[in-house]
């Protein structure tokens, strides 16, 4: 397994998520797509951490040890924040549903007002 494969999978996940987030009309689907994008980023972060830091250690680059777990820690943070965001997003969706009886994002075109 090489770094490239992980990065490609991350990129694919991110791209699918981006496409979904931009094209889906249903607010729940948009939220799900956002989750895909988070995960794409997480895969990338973890993979880079796993592959680049030991290499830097083996080459005796200064301060390399201090970056040992950065990628992994970031992934944990992102998962946590994503969970919070989904909760927040669902709350907004419920609020929209209550006010307009719909969860289609195309109906919530209030930004131009």
């Amino acid at each position, binding site marked *: 397994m090489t770094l490239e494969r992980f990065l490609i999978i991350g990129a694919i996940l991110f791209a699918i998520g*981006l496409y979904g*987030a*931009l*094209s889906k009309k249903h607010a729940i689907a948009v939220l799900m797509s956002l989750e895909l994008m988070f995960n794409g980023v997480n895969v990338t972060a973890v993979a880079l951490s796993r592959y680049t830091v030991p290499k830097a250690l083996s080459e005796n680059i200064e301060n390399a040890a201090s970056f040992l777990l950065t990628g992994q820690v970031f992934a944990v943070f992102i998962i946590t924040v994503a969970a919070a965001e989904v909760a927040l997003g669902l709350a907004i969706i419920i609020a929209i549903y209550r006010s307009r009886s719909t969860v289609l*994002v195309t109906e919530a*075109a*209030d*930004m*131009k007002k």
Partner: protein
Amino acid sequence: MVNEQLIWAIFFLPLISFGLIALIIRPFFNQASVIAGPIAVLFIGASFVISILTFIERNINGTLTLVGDPINWLTIGAFKLEVGILLDPLTTTMLVVVTGVSLMVQIYSTFYMKDPGSHHGTENQGSDSEPAELGQPVYARYFAYMSLFTASMLGLVMASNVVQLFVFWELVGLCSYLLIGFWFHRPAAAAAAKKAFIVTRVGDFGFLLALMYLFSKTYQENINYLNIQTINENLPTLVSSGTLGAGALTLIAIGFFVGAIGKSGQFPLHTWLPDAMEGPTPVSALIHAATMVTAGVFLVGRFFPLFQASQEAMMVVALVGGITALFAATMGLVSNDIKRVLAYSTVSQLGYMMLALGIGAYGVAIFHLFTHAFFKALLFLGSGSVNHATGTFDMRFMGGLRKKMPITYITFLIGSLSLAGIFPLAGFWSKDEILLNAFRSGSEGGEIVSMTVFVLAIIAVFMTAFYMFRALFMTFEGEFRGGSEKDPEANPHGPVHLGESPFLMVLPMLILAIPAVIIGFIANPPGELLGIKAHWMVHTLDHSLPDSMHHLLKGESFSVPLAAVSSLVALSGIALAIAMYKPKPLISPESIGKTLRPVHTLLYRKYYFDELYEGIFVRQIYYRGLALASDWTDKNIVDRAVNIVGWTGANFGGLIRQFQNGQMQMYATVTSIGIIVIAAIFIFGD
């Protein structure tokens, strides 16, 4: 005795009078506007006295030399525009002419203009329908304009700088416009004012171009060639150093002359002057006979060294003058309007002056200007006096006034004889010197030109004598033919009241009759006379030119045979006029009119010049050509360019608006694309 402050006062006195009348009397004391006349007379009178003193000290005693520094008016970088007084014999002569005639005319006007509701439009007869403007308020407005005109004219002749001269040049044009259109509610007067302004502007444009060309050619930081004296005195140096080539010199001279053509009503821009007779008669006497129209002659005289340096320009001046002298005289032969006869005569006499300048007789031309101012103003005042009695200007409805208005008759006769050039009146001396100079000159390859203009001038002498005595006989002899009661086109002012005009109108005519008789002999006697040197005036004027130019001058003299010939020609003109227009004519004008029907029509219609200008230039070239072309350009190019700018803005905005649809997803898409593009630039950019 006379110092610079006093000479400035000549200019400022009429200006103060204008300010007083226009800014104080007319707005606040209009009920008492009667005092406007005396105020104007008083100020001009003071101006006149100083002018006479200046004339005596400068031209006769020769004790006056002006050393005053010019006043700095404008500084642009190193360029300084200075205003000041140029006091040479030409200026002092003009000062006397302008203030003298102006004074007489203002005295005359105090009565002529007083008669409320007189001398104006037929369109709204009867005092009921006339606007309130036509009562006494007119009086103050009239004298305000007249004072402003006099001040501008004095400023014009005193100007030491070309730009200063041009400013006053335009100011007199403005005053002429205001005064021709004085009875602006009459369509004919309004149209005549407009015509005068526009036609003279054509000439002014040439003047302005020449001015700019002169400046661009000669501008140097240390010498200011816009100063008239500087340029006249430095001309030989300028030419020899190559600053001014022969071509440039000719162009500048011709440009100045085009301005003079417009102002002095020379062919082919003469059409405005006869129409300008729509103005009040004293205005015609002052502006369109004695002063403003001579500004063109003055301008050529002012830059005479410049003209002398270019033989081509001199030839043009001489030929245009000669052609105008004859051409205008022919139209005067058939005109029935007494003021128009005088107007054509003015154009013709201005042609004489130009002709004299063109053949190099500088002093003689100014001498003729000097004498002409007096007798022509006299004739105009006489026609005003006749109009006062009969209510019309059409000579077909006059006649028989000799016994009713003896003083007017005698002064008019004196003016006519003087204009016709009969010995020993003023006109004789000046006109004869012009003819003599045209006859004798012929040096430097100008024989053909000077012979041509001599022939033109001598024919014009005959015609001048004829039309003046035709006018005199039609007006004063025979039976009275009804005046304004018969003339359908007259602008009557109450019933016809045949009788001599009031004292204040007769007095200026009597005073002007004196110089009309003696001034030619006194100012320029053919021999030593009572301490006056022979040909004193012409000599003084000629010798005021820069020394380097003296060899080009013709000098002055008097020839008895030529005087006899010209007198004979004039007398035969008078004789023909008497034969045709005396109460029982030997030759019937009608039969001649029938025989020469086409010629008569051609002259009566003024050679169709008005039709040419109106029909061809204005309607065809201007309306159909230039105006349509500019209209098309405006609509299709200018407007479209503006529309394209607006259209682009509107549609570009519409394009952008498509993205601003309020959909979060659209915003995110645009952002994403933006990020991708930026990333692509970072990755592939190098």
